[in-house]
């Protein structure tokens, strides 16, 4: 397992706690994220992760035909969170279905006849390329190869569940509308969602906003009085009569009326019963036989824009086109925080020498060579890449942690000893600024930078592993905007588990003030603003160097 570094986002801990949880606990992995999935808010000067950002939908598209559906039509129509064109997914294997024409009529003389029409012969049906299911098995065929969803719409609308839903909506709508008008004053002003377009959703969000702060409003047995709770200051609501009796509905599904038991008796293979994954997307109970599964319209995907939860600054704003990967606003943490990678040099030494030769004989050899063994000390390399256009000074420090949990077998007093000790360079070291790629062209010999530290070393000189190294802890190499520092970890004899430690990284950088005043008659405040200010940013990371192999289990490499 390669060593990794993850960054800490404080959204999971409370408001006052800023230190990360101890890394050996399983639950702490929720607070640590790889750098490329994090965002950075410039106003708050804080790291944000995908869990804490607030999300708004900026557009919908079908993942199969890539057609962009306007948000208005998605919210307005009933079934419109699915593609309205020809995109269906196979009920058996969930891959996309292809519209195929039936075979042309046989000419009778054995030769394959050439179809005259452009799109083939009707009737058309859906065919799955992966599992060879086709919709003729459930009796769904089409007259035209386009507009399939519209052709199926008639059948869908007459299904008993959608008629029941319409009836429920008509029953609740007048009451929800009047209750939403009376409770609009309760809606919090910092709502992050767009104003709902229909009265039903307005009422739902108003009810939710009212219910969430107060905990004691849940009344489980009062199913028929749900409307009454929400319209507390309104008149009574008449009781709802459903369109058909429950026993009638039982014949549609498998509600214990004996017909499904008969089917089970006649069953030959286990695949005749639809699996849970194929069935749980349906809102009502349907037949549990695989042969009754119908093709599903493909649900739409959405493009989201993300905002900082505290200051509402937009962090991610995608472009209008659904399939474009560019963003109008993109405040990712990788543009602000130094990217760090960690490597164990003894692992890399084993890999590179094997490549041009024949394949390595055994994998257990690799495991012993590359892994971390208890009772030894290993150096590791930490490479920091500076994304800013200014040089930074970085200081690292290991967070001290209490280790109380150790695996089985060891006595409690042994468990309290720290399993490993990490030493890092304690002084701050600089990392050069980032410059455009053309300055570091491979073919070019000159670097053309004013920084004299880089002038000392040309190209990729680094300490060869064979030479005697003077130090293992400290700055090892500076190249372009990457600085490699070395640290050392000493593993105790009784150590188990993973070598994971929290590391505090703080870096300072100059943020130059723009626009120094050219006018000689500047105000005093302007002359003060000319001096660049030095800003410091601090964040936590967790470094995972890999599992520790206990010493007794050393595998004989000859076997």
């Amino acid at each position, binding site marked *: 397992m390669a060593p990794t570094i993850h960054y800490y986002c404080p959204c999971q801990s409370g408001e006052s706690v800023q230190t990360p949880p101890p890394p050996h606990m399983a639950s702490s992995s929720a607070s640590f994220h790889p750098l490329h999935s994090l965002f950075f808010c410039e106003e708050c000067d804080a790291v944000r992760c995908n869990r804490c950002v607030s999300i708004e939908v900026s557009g919908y598209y079908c993942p199969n035909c890539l057609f962009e559906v306007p948000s208005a039509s998605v919210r307005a129509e009933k079934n419109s969170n699915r593609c309205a064109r020809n995109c269906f997914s196979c009920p058996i294997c969930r891959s996309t279905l292809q519209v195929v024409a039936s075979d042309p009529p046989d000419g009778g003389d054995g030769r394959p006849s050439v179809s005259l029409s452009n799109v083939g012969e009707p009737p058309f049906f859906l065919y799955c390329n992966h599992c060879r299911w086709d919709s003729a098995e459930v009796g769904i065929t089409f007259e035209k190869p386009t507009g399939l969803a519209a052709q199926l719409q008639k059948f869908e609308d007459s299904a008993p569940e959608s008629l029941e839903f319409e009836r429920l909506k008509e029953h609740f709508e007048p009451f929800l509308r009047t209750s939403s008008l009376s409770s609009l004053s309760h809606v919090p002003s910092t709502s992050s969602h767009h104003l709902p377009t229909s009265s039903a959703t307005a009422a739902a969000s108003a009810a939710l906003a009212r219910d969430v702060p107060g905990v004691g409003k849940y009344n489980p047995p009062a199913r028929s009085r749900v409307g009454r709770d929400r319209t507390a200051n309104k008149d009574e609501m008449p009781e709802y009569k459903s369109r058909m009796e429950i026993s009638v509905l039982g014949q549609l599904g498998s509600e214990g009326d004996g017909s499904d038991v008969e089917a089970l008796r006649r069953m030959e293979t286990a695949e005749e019963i639809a699996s849970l994954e194929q069935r749980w997307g349906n809102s009502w109970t349907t037949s549990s036989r695989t042969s009754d599964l119908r093709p599903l319209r493909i649900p739409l995907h959405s493009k989201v824009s993300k905002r900082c939860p505290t200051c509402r600054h937009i962090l991610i704003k995608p472009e209008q086109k659904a399939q474009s990967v560019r963003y109008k606003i993109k405040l*990712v943490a990788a543009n602000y925080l130094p990217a760090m990678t960690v490597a164990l040099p003894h692992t890399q030494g084993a890999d590179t020498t094997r*490549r*041009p030769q024949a394949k390595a004989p055994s994998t257990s050899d690799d495991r012993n060579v590359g892994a971390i063994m208890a009772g030894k000390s290993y150096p590791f390399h930490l490479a920091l890449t500076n994304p800013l256009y200014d040089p930074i000074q970085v200081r690292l420090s290991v967070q001290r942690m209490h280790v109380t949990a150790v695996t089985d077998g060891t006595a409690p007093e042994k468990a309290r000893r720290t399993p490993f000790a990490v030493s890092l360079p304690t002084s701050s070291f600089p990392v050069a600024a980032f410059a455009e790629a053309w300055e570091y062209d491979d073919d070019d010999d000159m670097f053309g930078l004013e920084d004299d530290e880089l002038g000392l070393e040309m190209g990729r000189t680094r300490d060869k592993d064979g030479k005697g190294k003077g130090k293992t802890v400290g700055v090892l190499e500076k190249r372009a905007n990457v600085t490699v520092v070395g640290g050392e970890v000493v593993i105790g004899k009784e150590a188990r588990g993973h070598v994971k430690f929290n590391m505090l990284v703080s870096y300072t950088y100059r943020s130059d003030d723009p626009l120094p005043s050219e006018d000689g008659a500047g105000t005093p405040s302007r002359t003060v603003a000319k001096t660049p200010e030095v800003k410091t940013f601090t964040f936590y990371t967790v470094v995972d160097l890999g599992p520790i192999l206990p010493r007794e289990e050393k595998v004989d490499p000859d076997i």
Partner: protein
Amino acid sequence: MDAPVYYSKAEFIETDTGNKVSRRATIAGPQNIILGGKTIISSGAIIRGDLRRTGPGHAVVISLGRYCLVGEGCVMRPPYKTYRGNFNYYPMKIGDYVHIGANTVVEAATIGNHVVIGKNCVIGKFTIIKDCAQVADNTVIPPNTVIPALALFAGSPGRFVEDLPESTQEMVESQTKQYYSRFQPLER
């Protein structure tokens, strides 16, 4: 990550645009194949540039972009279809910064930029893979699938798993460029 990936100098042909093609790769119909520059074709790869669409003139069967990597043992064949009685091959267009893993069979119609495909995958015919998508290892993508941008597909049949982070494009671009610079001949 900084470790160089060595190859035997005699094994690879390097062109003036920086493409590195292994001599042990099977390239059929090289006049119909376009490599964008700084592209690596590993040993054992099979690229069928000879399966071209019938018709006069010069046809481009397979075109790859810059900084691409075709893994070892990969098979790249253009997709074919019988339409109104005519059998035809369709050209295969691959974008820049695309890494294709080892032993993968690719019959897609279009692959966008910054795509990473894992090893032992099977990409069915006429698949369209948009920019910055990724296909995990050991995935089987059925024919005629569309993989939208920034999507991660896995499983057999390949299904949508999750959306990738927004900085995927820069990550893949820097990884592919770094891989090319680490791919160095071993002086013997």
